[in-house]
């Protein structure tokens, strides 16, 4: 695998998959690296081998389409592969990857990052209790194994995802105890004009809501989960009416799906020198890239949710744009796809992202004793004390308290920590960027990073003469 590729694509979701397809069609030598066993990303995730037969969903159809196109494509797909470091070496990129339990190096002339999104979950008391999973995390269970998070589940969070998750739980035979969303009906009414351009998606969302109403599942608009009860597993939840600031209904439940929108996974792009900017309607901090993925960094292209949360439809279109652009820049002949369809899809995606981002009052849900950094079990009080003593950047809180140095690498605490810094130092969130990303981009077992070696082969310099 030491041969030089023309283009390496990181991520095999709608964006990365389509970028690889288009680039390979142009004749470029393309390698696509992805963490999952099959292409599809989070949104079109493939099923595990345990599912022999299942009714087809729109996500299955879209994913199967991408998977079959890629299997016929000349692009090489490396599955179950984690990219943990990327370096510029002269005129090419070197990617350190972890595959089959060993580290390898992949080299390429141009690099397309399609690193997708992760989820933001506002820390609330008890959110570390076993039985609380992310909203997007729940969709991963549904798509891979068609399994449920529990027998009776509360689904809480922002944007359309909360209704998709509730609907999937019902489709898979589970019980939804309640849907709790900080969004109000007025928020949805305001978003509707931007949704007209995507009538199929609009109709699907309306069906999810109508089904829940017919099934008499309580939907608490303008509410949030304020506390999770239970010690070694979830037994119930409490809610708060966000507008009036008073307690809402409580529910007995064995599981909670909780999420506050998606955030772009920008670490790799940021590490390679892409400029970042703050745009709430794209999910927060995003790298700067043209619609066709080009950046100011030579040989670096970005596409999909990893450069702003615009949704799967926009990601697939931008993958095509970026794949063609990267191939053309290397001298291959690739068509210039129109940008209009991406712009239309982007409008819908931004409206959904705006519905999904946490409300300004969400941070009040994180009480002083609430764990903010899950890896190091640091509470809001721990973080706030550090900020008070002068740690006024995410980097400073990280080096002072280790918040961001645990196994997750800061993926689940940095957004909340930045909000705390902004609040305590009277800054705007747009003035508190995420910490400087450092490799490894993904956790690497030390033995695998070191690879096979013999201690006797280690060069030991001669001791200095006395």
């Amino acid at each position: 695998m030491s041969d030089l590729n023309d283009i390496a694509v990181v991520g095999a979701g709608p964006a990365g998959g389509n970028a690889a397809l288009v680039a390979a069609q142009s004749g470029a030598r393309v390698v696509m690296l992805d963490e999952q066993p099959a292409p599809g990303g989070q949104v079109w995730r493939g099923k595990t081998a345990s599912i022999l037969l299942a009714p087809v969903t729109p996500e299955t159809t879209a994913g199967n389409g991408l998977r079959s196109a890629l299997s016929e494509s000349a692009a090489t797909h490396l599955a179950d592969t984690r990219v943990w470091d990327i370096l510029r070496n002269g005129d090419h990129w070197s990617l350190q990857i972890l595959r089959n339990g060993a580290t390898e190096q992949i080299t390429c002339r141009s690099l397309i990052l399609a690193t997708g999104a992760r989820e933001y979950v506002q820390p609330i008391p008890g959110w570390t209790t076993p039985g609380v999973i992310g909203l997007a995390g729940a969709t991963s269970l549904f798509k891979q194994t068609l399994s449920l998070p529990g027998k009776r589940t509360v689904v809480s969070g922002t944007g359309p995802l909360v209704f998709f998750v509730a609907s999937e739980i019902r489709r898979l035979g589970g019980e939804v105890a309640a849907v709790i969303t900080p969004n109000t009906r007025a928020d949805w009414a305001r978003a509707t004009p931007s949704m007209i351009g995507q009538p199929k998606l609009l109709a699907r969302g309306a069906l999810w809501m109508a089904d829940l109403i017919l099934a008499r599942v309580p939907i608490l608009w303008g509410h949030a989960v304020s506390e999770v009860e239970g010690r070694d597993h979830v037994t119930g939840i409490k809610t708060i009416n966000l507008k009036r600031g008073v307690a809402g209904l409580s529910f007995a439940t064995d599981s909670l799906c909780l999420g506050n929108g998606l955030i772009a996974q920008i670490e790799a792009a940021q590490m390679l020198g892409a400029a970042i900017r703050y745009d709430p309607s794209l999910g927060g901090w995003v790298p700067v890239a043209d619609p066709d993925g080009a950046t100011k960094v030579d040989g670096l292209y970005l596409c999909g949710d990893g450069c702003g949360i615009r949704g799967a439809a926009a990601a697939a279109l931008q993958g095509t744009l970026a794949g063609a652009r990267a191939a053309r820049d290397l001298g291959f002949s690739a068509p210039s796809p129109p940008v209009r369809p991406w712009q239309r899809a982007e409008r819908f995606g931004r409206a959904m992202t705006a519905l999904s981002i946490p409300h300004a009052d969400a941070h009040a849900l994180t009480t002083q004793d609430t764990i903010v950094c899950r890896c190091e079990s640091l509470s809001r009080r721990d973080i706030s004390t550090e900020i008070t003593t002068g740690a006024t950047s995410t980097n400073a809180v990280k080096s002072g308290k280790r918040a961001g140095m645990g196994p997750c690498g800061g993926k689940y605490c940095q957004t909340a920590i930045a909000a705390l810094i902004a609040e305590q130092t009277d800054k705007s969130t747009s003035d508190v960027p995420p910490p400087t990303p450092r490799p490894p981009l993904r956790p690497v077992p030390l033995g695998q990073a070191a690879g096979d070696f013999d201690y006797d082969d280690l060069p030991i310099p001669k001791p200095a003469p006395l």
Partner: protein
Amino acid sequence: MIRLVPNHATRIKRSETVTFTFDSEPVQGHLGETLVAALMRAGHLNLREAPNDSAPRGAFCCMGLCQECAVIVDGQVVEACRTVVSADLVVERA
């Protein structure tokens, strides 16, 4: 009651069940599914203790990022959400 979202549970066909152990206790799971799905179905939500306050933790992000579902298989720390169920798999708490 009218359902707009049909219940598909009975239309899903899964692979054979196999037995593996979690913390020396036998657990049933479908061959090839993720460990996290099998453990959740069996009610094993509490997978590990957090390092600093020993509080119980379980699967959270379900996509290989948060490391909350870390367990030990064959002496290696692995994510239960990225590990596949097979017969006689021995899974220990991390």
